[in-house]
């Protein structure tokens, strides 16, 4: 191995051009989760961020003792500014969903979300953090180059060439690494815990009344073997989702196992947004060719039904 070979590997990973369909599909599902998050903020908007919020601006500034950017910090706080920032966030989320002015929309979403999150960081959970980070990477990505109004009206389209245009995937790669970092942090955080190693962590998590969502019929008798299985399954899948996911042959099985993990968590535990954004993020790992195959299959199906009738 020499420096030239390493450079070649680097360039191939970050700059080998590919279709924008995966990142575009992620943009759509990401925007839906973002809208879900925005809707959930609405009923208590002024209680969290308004003039008489649960925490003052001074406390928010002092929290973690580091300067933080935020539109709320520029002027004296009042409910009008809260409404204005919230409205801009709603509009930019919708334009991002449809891929209209995609980069500007992603930038606006990032600025508004950062401002809201820094105004009251005490109410954020992992889903919020990941939604904010994804908007940052979407600014640099080619998410507007497919399945979007931008691509519909773009010059590339007007070129009238039947061949699909390919793009640098470096921002998508950063997003993939960010998703893996979520599982990395989560896995190694848990690896330091005795209950995770003993196999009892899922038992304690499911006994926390504040998280309970739907009833778990199999858990009535507290089957130790099931708690152990679920605890080690969680650890193994989290490990696989930052390691084995990079190996082509393992990728789809690992993604399917990850979907089961998050659907199970979504059913049993009240942790809004996080499960949804994690499942959406798996789209970033799907080969564009496979997405196109799926689209082709979906297009063919109605025709097959028509011809049958």
């Amino acid at each position, binding site marked *: 191995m020499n420096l030239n070979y390493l450079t070649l590997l*680097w360039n191939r990973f*970050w*700059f080998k051009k590919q279709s924008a369909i995966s990142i575009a599909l992620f943009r759509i599902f990401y925007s839906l989760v973002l809208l879900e998050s925005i809707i*959930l903020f609405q*009923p*208590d908007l002024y*209680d*969290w961020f308004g003039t*008489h*919020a*649960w*925490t003052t601006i001074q*406390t928010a500034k002092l*929290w*973690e003792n*580091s*300067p*933080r*950017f935020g539109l709320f910090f520029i002027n004296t706080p009042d409910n009008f500014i809260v409404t204005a920032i919230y409205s801009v966030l709603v509009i930019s989320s919708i334009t991002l969903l449809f891929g209209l002015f995609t980069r500007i929309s992603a930038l606006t979403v*990032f600025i508004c979300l*950062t401002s809201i*999150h*820094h105004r009251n960081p*005490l*109410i954020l*959970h*992992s889903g919020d*953090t*990941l939604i904010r*980070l994804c908007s*940052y990477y979407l600014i640099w990505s080619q998410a507007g180059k497919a399945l979007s109004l931008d691509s519909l009206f773009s010059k590339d389209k007007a070129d009238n060439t039947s061949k699909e245009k390919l793009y*640098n995937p*470096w921002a998508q790669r*950063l997003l993939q690494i*960010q998703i893996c*970092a*979520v599982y990395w*942090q*989560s896995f190694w*955080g*848990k690896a*330091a*815990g*005795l*209950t*995770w190693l003993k196999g009892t*962590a899922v*038992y*304690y*998590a499911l*006994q*926390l*009344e*504040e998280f309970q969502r739907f009833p778990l019929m199999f858990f009535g008798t*507290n089957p*130790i073997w099931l*708690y152990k299985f679920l605890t080690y399954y969680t650890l193994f899948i989290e490990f696989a989702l930052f390691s084995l996911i990079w190996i082509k042959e393992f990728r789809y099985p690992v993604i399917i196992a990850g979907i089961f993990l998050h659907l199970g968590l979504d059913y049993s535990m*009240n942790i*809004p947004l*996080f499960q949804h954004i994690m499942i959406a993020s798996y789209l970033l790992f799907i080969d564009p060719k496979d997405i196109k195959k799926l689209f082709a299959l979906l297009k063919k199906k109605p025709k097959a039904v028509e011809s049958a009738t």
Partner: protein
Amino acid sequence: MTHSKLQQIQQCFLSLFIVINLCIIILWSIPSCTLTEFLFAPIKNISQFSGLWQNFAMFSPNPRNVNLNYVALITYADGSVKLWQFPRMEHLNIIDKMIKERYRKFINDHVSNESEKMIWPDVARHLAYINNSNPNNPPKVISLRSFISEIPDLETNNKRKETESYTFFVYKVMPEDLK
């Protein structure tokens, strides 16, 4: 300048930008030590300021082994006391559970934390403000009270203690808190 030369220069700048972003992700993903804190100090400040900070340690290192419940006691000028219950997730329907989940985060993860007691006066002030419906009988004292109930051990099914309850913060309401 040829097209490929231009592309190479572009890739160099992009690579630099990628490395900076990778450093930010790595900084927040590795355990903190003196060396990493020294190396990453400038990047850490930038990422905290710009919103690129992150922490995904869910149920880590262990899930909590106690159930928590918080109430506020609001004492009015006439001596009457009102019990104010923070939203309890287990008593809400599925929609309200999703909407009010941030209360769970705020109360059970932060207000409950002694190391974050700087937020307690803010919480008390907000409670005084939202519970000031009668100008002739304003709130005078806000007390924050916690109830802690231990989850039984899985293997022995033993609960070591009964539910504990104690007042952890008392705040005297100022007239300016109610404006």
